[in-house]
C-alpha cells in the first residue's frame, strides 16, 4: 500500500456521459456520469482504497476530487480514465503541441485517497474557476 500512485490519464467519451450531457450539465445524471475516475482494481489495491472511494487526481494543470470506480470498459493497470467533461477538464493540460488540441489523453496524474473530501458540482467547479460561484463550499 502506498499513499500515492502515478497513472497515465485519458479522458474520452462515454454513452452515459453523452446522454446525461443532453439532459443537462447541471443534472444529477451528469454528475453521476462524469465525476468519476475509472481505474484497474490492481491500482486501487496499490493505493489501498476500496472501489467507490473519493480520490484526488492531480496533474501539471490542476487538481480535482472524483470517485474511483472499477472500469465500465476494461482499463489495464497503469491507465486511468475520466470521462470527458467538467471534472476531466480540471486536470487536462492545455498544451497543444502546436496543433490547437490540448493533451486530452496521455498525461501523468497523481492519484491519492481523499475519503473526507467532497466532490464539487460542475457549476461550482466552472463558476468557481472564474470567480462567479456564490453557493459556498457545501
Amino acid at each position, binding site marked *: 500500500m502506498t499513499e500515492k500512485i502515478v497513472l497515465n490519464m485519458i*479522458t474520452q467519451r462515454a454513452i452515459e456521459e*453523452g*446522454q446525461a450531457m443532453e439532459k443537462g450539465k447541471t443534472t444529477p445524471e451528469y454528475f453521476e456520469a462524469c465525476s468519476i475516475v475509472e481505474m484497474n482494481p490492481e491500482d486501487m489495491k496499490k493505493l489501498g482504497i476500496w472501489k467507490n472511494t473519493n480520490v484526488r487526481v492531480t496533474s501539471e494543470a*490542476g487538481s480535482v476530487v472524483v470517485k474511483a470506480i472499477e472500469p465500465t470498459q476494461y482499463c489495464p493497470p497503469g491507465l486511468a480514465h475520466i470521462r470527458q467533461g467538467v471534472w476531466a477538464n480540471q486536470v487536462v493540460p492545455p498544451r497543444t503541441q502546436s496543433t490547437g488540441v490540448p493533451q*486530452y489523453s496521455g498525461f501523468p496524474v497523481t492519484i491519492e485517497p481523499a475519503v473526507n473530501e467532497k466532490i464539487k458540482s460542475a457549476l461550482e467547479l466552472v463558476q468557481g474557476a472564474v470567480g462567479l460561484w456564490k453557493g459556498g463550499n457545501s
Partner: protein
Amino acid sequence: MPKLITQVGCPYCGSSCDDIEVLVSEDGKRILETRNACVIGNEIFHHVSSPDRPKKPRMRQPDGSTKEVSYDEAVDFTARTLIKAKKPLIYGFGSTNCEGMSAVARVAEKAGAVLDNCASICHGPSFLAIFDNGYPSCTLGEVKNRADVIVFWGCNPMHAHPRHTSRYSIFPRGFFTNKGQMHRTIISIDPRETDTAKLADYHFMLKQGHDYDLFDAFRTVLRGHDIPAEVAGCKREMILEAAEKMRNARFVMIFFGMGCTHTDGRNHNVDIAISLTRDLNSHTKASIMAMRGHYNIAGPGQVWSWQFGFPYCIDLSKGTHAHMNPGETSSIDLAMRDEVDCFVNVGTDAGAHFPIEAIRHLKKHPFITVDPNICMASEIADLHVPVRVVGVEEPGVVYRMDNVPIQFKKVIDGPEGVPSDEEFFDHVYTRMCELTQTEPTWLPVKAHAQVSTFAEN
C-alpha cells in the same frame, strides 16, 4: 390525432442518422415519442420541451446575478461588444446548421474576428494531416456496401456514435456484404477493451500513446519487412495476422478517432494512418475516414472553406485576407496566450470542454454564449442567448462525417419569439453595419436566394 413524421435527422453525432421517426402532438408543439434514435438522440428530442429551458436572453449583472433582457438588447450588446473588441474569438458550431455557420462567418468578417470550430480541439490534427498527405476517403454508403475489413483506430463508436455500427460499419447487410457482420472482419485498436473492442475479431490493446509505432509496424509488414517480436505492447504474430487480413480484403475501411488526435503525435498519427491506407491500395482497395463527433461538425469545414478558403482556425483580424495557422490561430492557444479580447461561444459548451485554465483566460474579457440550453458556457457568460434547436425546431443543411450534405427537418415549432442561430446573427450583422455606418458586403442567405431567383426569372 398525433402525427408521425418520418425521415427526420438526428442532431447528435457525426453519423447524422436520417431515419428517425418522431410522433408529434396534434397541435405540433410537443414531441410524444421518437423511434429508431439511440439513447442520446432520444434525449435531445425530448429535452426540447423541458420546462427549465431558457426562452429569453440573460445578461450578467454587476453583482454576478443574471437578468432577462429582450432579443433586441442582446443583438445590440453582441454587435457593440464585437465592434469594440480588437480581436474577438468566435468558436463552436458543433451543433448548428450550415445556414447559421455562414451567418456567423459574415459577422466574423465584419468584426475582424478569429473564427474557429470544435474541430480545433477534436479533429484539427486530422485536417493538418489531410493537408499534408491527402484524404483517400469515401462515403458511408460505400462502407456499408463494400467494406469487408473494418478498422476502428482510437475510436469507440458503441459509445460516441451509437448507431454507426448498425447503420454503416459492422452489422448492416450491403450489396457486396450481404451477410452483414458474418461478412466482415473487425479490427479494434484501443488501449482499453471498449465496448467496440468487444465486438472485434482482433483487439490490439496497444500501449497508450504508441499509435504511431503500431501504424508503422503495419506498414512495414505490408511492405514485406520484418518487425520486432512486440510493437507498442502488441505481439508480432497478431500484427502479421491482421495485416494479412487487410491485404486479402476486398475493401479495407479505417475509421480513426480521438485516440489518434488527442494524444502524443497528434497529426502525425493521422498522417501515417493515411500513408497506411495508400500502401494498402497497392494490394486491394482501402479507404479512411475521420469519426467526426457532431452531426454537422463537417459543416464549418465546408462552409468556411467556400467563404474564406480554410476550414478552421481562421484569423480574419488582418482585414485584408484570411490567415490560418493552427497552434497560432487555434482557440486554446489564443486563449492561453491572452491574444483575444472577447469570446463568443456558439452551439457548443467551451465551459465544459476546454481545459479550465483556458476558460479562466477567456473569462477576463466579454463572454457571450449562443446556445439553446443551460450549459457551463451559459452559466459563466456575460450574455446568454437561447436559440432554436437545429434538427428539432429549425431545419437546415448539415454535413455528415463523410461530407455528404443532408437536409434536416423541423419537427415542432420553437418557443415563441426565440430566433434561430442564423436569424440572431443576421440581426447582429445588420446592427453592426448600422453602428459603424457601413454598407453590408454580404446579403443574408434568404435575401440572396430571392435576388438570384429574381435574376434568373
